[in-house]
């Protein structure tokens, strides 16, 4: 039934352009602003996420200048800058980039002609964009969790509620797409890895964002009416601070693992054995992350996972009681991630005589997942009270590892699927250097915070972090520049299947038309395109023999 979904024809029709340049411009703007084409909605999210990244980098640079002693910031503004950093990293960068890639790509992978409830996803984008804008306005005007202007604090809370509604709506759209719009023959076991990771992330949004919304509603009503229940502004971080924790961020970084799993089989052009194991890895990460957020009250979990104390004053039984929830919340997601990584390494075993097919999905996905993994290890260490990391910048380093790891993967995803989204092939020789630069930026922006956690804050650490953030800005700007120049100079001759792909998005033209597929393709295996290619994965000499 299609009463809520627009038909493919409606999506394709767009808005008629006027004759004049201004008319065409207005028509194009209206087309983008009101589009129900999932590729446009996804690209809007991606563009918003890249803008958010640049803004967040600018905030981090200001913070670095202050911390390194190069300059001084008005102390009154420090609270807002710290708030802006957290909001920028999670809501401004991580979420839109991860969601944007999923919205743009998943329906093509499923062989669907459109996203389920595309207008819901579009509304989700505008609510996210509006909420982020309002939260920044509130911060600029002395709002935020530690702000002094009550109206701006209220605006800050309301803006986050708006973003929560929008992101949950988009999560419903993504999850429903995977569950209901798969091509004929594509059972859940045959769903591509990236789409499966998007499903887990989408369900995570559906489960977590409403909890955030409910808590924010309490805080908003209480803050406007006496502030007796939650203690004024500070209640925001006591009761809703978990959304800025690396544990929650890890859930939204799941598509990073999906991207890597997507690129691994293409390395030596093999089918993936034991796909269920990879799916189980995604599930472990998702369940553990949701658990760590929803079980806070029961296990006294302060944002970053359960506390673990090895101190001598504890009884053995008490230590074990601490150990179990700590391991559940911190080691289970790591186990899930390790499973995905091991499956990828299994497929990276060289095939004699075959040339490796290194795609941006593999390179950026591998490096991005590595960064996310270091962030997760840091989160696990941070919860061990005996290490004395709490109250230091260690947690900030962990969050930046997770967020910048996701940024790397998002850049890789954009490069990998650029033929479908923009109609251009980005050559590996030009794209891969950005992966190296991005990793360097991530390590510099995060690792000194880890070291400072064990040591003590020093100017040199702050300067290194500052350099890391600047490098990340250069990575993003360089990538955007490459993409824009490639699109501008494109002659519309992008290959439909430049990577010899296995999944359905490579079966349609580049760029993908508005409806993705003229007819929904039929699927006979988990790698439907391999079924239609002769001698797939055979080295040249074998091809000659056959």
């Amino acid at each position, binding site marked *: *039934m299609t*009463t*809520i*979904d627009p038909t493919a024809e409606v999506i394709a029709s767009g808005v008629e352009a006027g004759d004049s340049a201004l008319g065409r411009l207005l028509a194009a703007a209206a087309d983008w602003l009101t589009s129900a084409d999932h590729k446009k909605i996804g690209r809007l999210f991606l563009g918003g996420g890249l803008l958010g990244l640049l803004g967040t980098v600018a905030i981090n640079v200001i913070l670095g200048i202050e911390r390194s002693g190069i300059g001084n910031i008005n102390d009154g503004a420090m609270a807002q800058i710290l708030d802006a950093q957290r909001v920028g990293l999670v809501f401004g960068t991580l979420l839109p980039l991860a969601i944007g890639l999923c919205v743009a790509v998943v329906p093509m992978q499923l*062989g669907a002609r459109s996203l*389920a*409830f595309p207008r*819901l996803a579009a509304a989700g984008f505008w609510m996210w964009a509006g909420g982020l804008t309002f939260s920044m306005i509130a911060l600029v005007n002395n709002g935020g969790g530690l702000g002094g202007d009550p109206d701006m604090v209220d605006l800050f809370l309301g803006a986050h509620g708006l973003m929560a509604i929008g992101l*949950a709506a988009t*999560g*419903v759209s993504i*999850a*429903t797409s995977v*569950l*209901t*719009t*798969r*091509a*004929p*023959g594509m059972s859940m076991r045959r769903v591509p890895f990236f789409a499966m990771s998007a499903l887990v992330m989408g*369900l995570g949004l*559906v*489960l*977590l*964002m*409403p*909890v955030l*919304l*409910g*808590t924010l*509603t*309490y805080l*908003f*009503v*209480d803050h406007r*009416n*006496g502030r*007796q*229940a939650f203690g004024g502004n500070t209640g925001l971080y006591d*009761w809703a601070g978990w959304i800025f924790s690396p544990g929650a961020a890890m859930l939204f970084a799941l598509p990073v693992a999906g991207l890597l799993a997507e690129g691994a089989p293409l390395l030596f052009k093999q089918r993936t054995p034991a796909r269920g194991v990879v799916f189980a890895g995604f599930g472990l990460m998702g369940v553990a992350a949701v658990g760590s957020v*929803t079980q806070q*009250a029961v296990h006294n979990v302060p944002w970053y996972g359960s506390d673990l104390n090895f101190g001598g004053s504890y009884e053995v039984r008490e230590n074990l009681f601490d150990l179990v929830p700590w391991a559940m919340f911190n080691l289970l997601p790591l186990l899930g991630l390790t499973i995905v990584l091991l499956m990828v390494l299994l497929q990276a075993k060289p095939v004699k005589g075959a040339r490796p097919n290194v795609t941006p999905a593999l390179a950026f996905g591998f490096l991005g997942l590595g960064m996310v993994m270091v962030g997760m290890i840091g989160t696990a260490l941070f919860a061990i009270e005996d290490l004395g990391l709490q109250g230091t910048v260690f947690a900030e380093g962990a969050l930046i590892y997770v967020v910048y790891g996701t940024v790397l993967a998002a850049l890789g995803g954009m490069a990998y699927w650029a033929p479908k989204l923009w109609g251009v092939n980005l050559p590996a020789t030009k794209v891969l250097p950005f992966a190296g630069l991005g990793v360097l930026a991530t390590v510099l922006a995060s690792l000194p915070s880890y070291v400072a956690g064990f040591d003590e804050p020093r100017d040199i650490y702050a300067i290194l972090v500052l350099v890391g953030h600047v490098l990340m800005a250069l990575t993003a700007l360089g990538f955007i520049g490459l993409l824009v120049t490639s699109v501008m100079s494109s002659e519309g001759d992008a290959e439909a*299947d430049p990577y010899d792909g296995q999944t*359905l998005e490579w*079966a349609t033209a580049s760029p993908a038309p508005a409806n993705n597929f*003229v*007819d*929904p*393709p*039929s*699927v006979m295996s988990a790698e*439907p*395109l391999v079924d*239609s*290619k*002769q001698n797939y994965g055979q080295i040249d000499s074998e091809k000659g023999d056959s």
Partner: protein
Amino acid sequence: MQALTAGPTDAPRRQIIIGTTLGVVAMVMMVGGMLAVWSEQRTNFVERDGNWLPSGVVIPEVAANVALIAFIALCTFAQWALWAAKRNDRGHGVFALSATALVAIMVINAQAFIYSEMGLGVGDGAYATMFYALTGFFMALMIIGVIFTVVAAFRFAGGRSDNEILAAHAIYWYAMSVIYTAIWFVVYVTK
């Protein structure tokens, strides 16, 4: 590469039902989270001040209990509408949907009556702010449910032969009954 063969026409995968189910899961998570915070705060305030419900405030339990019973009727009517739609019985279907909307409005009225009888201002302490935030969200969900019912009724009366939206509509009211039962127990029974 050989072209992939075109598949058959899209199999109906109950998109509205799945989407609604995910939506109600989100609603349940939201209210569940709010009730968890409510319970935590109630414990904190009882430990600190000795009481949670402000003195002199009486909750009109009869209205709360009647609203709970009304949800049995709501679910029955919503299921009746689906039953009628499956048999293409337009008369029964429209009547059942109208009854659903009417009972939902009565529940909203009962909640408004509770507000009126309690005489509690939204700014009258921690209990009041949390009470109005929680039950206010419940009211919003009830109003969304009434709109859902009206839209479903117009579609059905207008000749739409599919019954997927009516199944989704019934799922919504079942979820709302679960949500209200939890609110009733935590807020009106254990107070």
